[in-house]
């Protein structure tokens, strides 16, 4: 949050441009990362589902954080 203390007014406003796709992209990123780990450990689809769910939670948290107090 240091940049707000430095008096950068538009920072959070412009970051909100990306909010719409953050939710979807974190879920996709979660699935992709999980898929990679599953391929590595030969455990499909355990980590894909787990990381996908974590991605959804992370997306919600990130959007909530962005909308309530900036980055």
């Amino acid at each position, binding site marked *: 949050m240091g940049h707000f203390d430095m008096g950068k007014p538009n*920072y959070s406003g*412009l*970051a909100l441009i990306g909010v719409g796709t953050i939710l979807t992209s974190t879920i996709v990123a979660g699935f992709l990362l999980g898929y990679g780990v599953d391929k590595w450990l030969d455990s499909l689809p355990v980590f894909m589902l787990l990381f996908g769910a974590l*991605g959804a939670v992370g997306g919600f948290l*990130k959007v909530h954080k962005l909308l309530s107090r900036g980055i």
Partner: protein
Amino acid sequence: MSANEQSSGMGTVEYIQHHLTNLCAGDCDPITHKGVGFWAWHLDTLFFSIALGTLIIVVSWRLGKNLSTDTPSGFQNFVESIVEFVGGQVKDTFPGHNPLIAPLALTIFIWVWLMNFMDLIPVDLLPVIAGFVGIHYLKAVPTTDLSTTFAMSLTVFVLIVYYNIKIKGVTGYLKMFLFHPFGKFFIPVNIVMALIEELAKPLSLGLRLFGNLFAGELVFLLIALIGGTMATGLAALFWLPLQVVLDLGWLIFHLLIITLQAFIFMVLTIVYLGMAHVDEH
């Protein structure tokens, strides 16, 4: 011109598929012409993106040689307004000082805008011209190709990682992955979630640009099909004017979209790189 395609025996589905297929070389499927391996080269994407990049360089070089402080030309004024606009965005949003950011943002904005602008050229024009010289597949808009959008977003991602490590140090950067968002008792979960969050940045940058432009191109193709499929006999008196009106309407709206998408890509690049320059915690 889609009517010509129709008369040559191409159905609506084939017409759309044909216009959405890149000119592929290397690891390509001989039937579908889609890339099947890593070394599949989309020659049309490469050609148009490099040609537009060269255009930017040549025009900037020529303008740079003829700069005038007393009586600036109209074009010089126009370019100055763009440079000032981008410079203003960087000044407002970017914390600290880095001489790379403003030129990078300007390049991204103009290059992405020009590549998006190829979408406004009539959908059949360039493929038909290419057909005359024996090129059977041509997708003229580089940003409707995932290879382009991900090449750009991954380049930005590499810069994000580079500046994170440069500003915060390797340990500082790795610490970001350990303690957020759930505190020190859930470090494994935190690592995964932070990784996902980092990966989501290039994914959202690339997919947003691709999705918007691909959908825009598809709508242009569907509008072109109105004339191609239904404008026969007297019905043409109704369908052809409708196609012209719809095309014009979507073109004007799309002009807004391509500018907005170029702007969003630029701004998010500045914001992400700005975050890499700030110690958040």
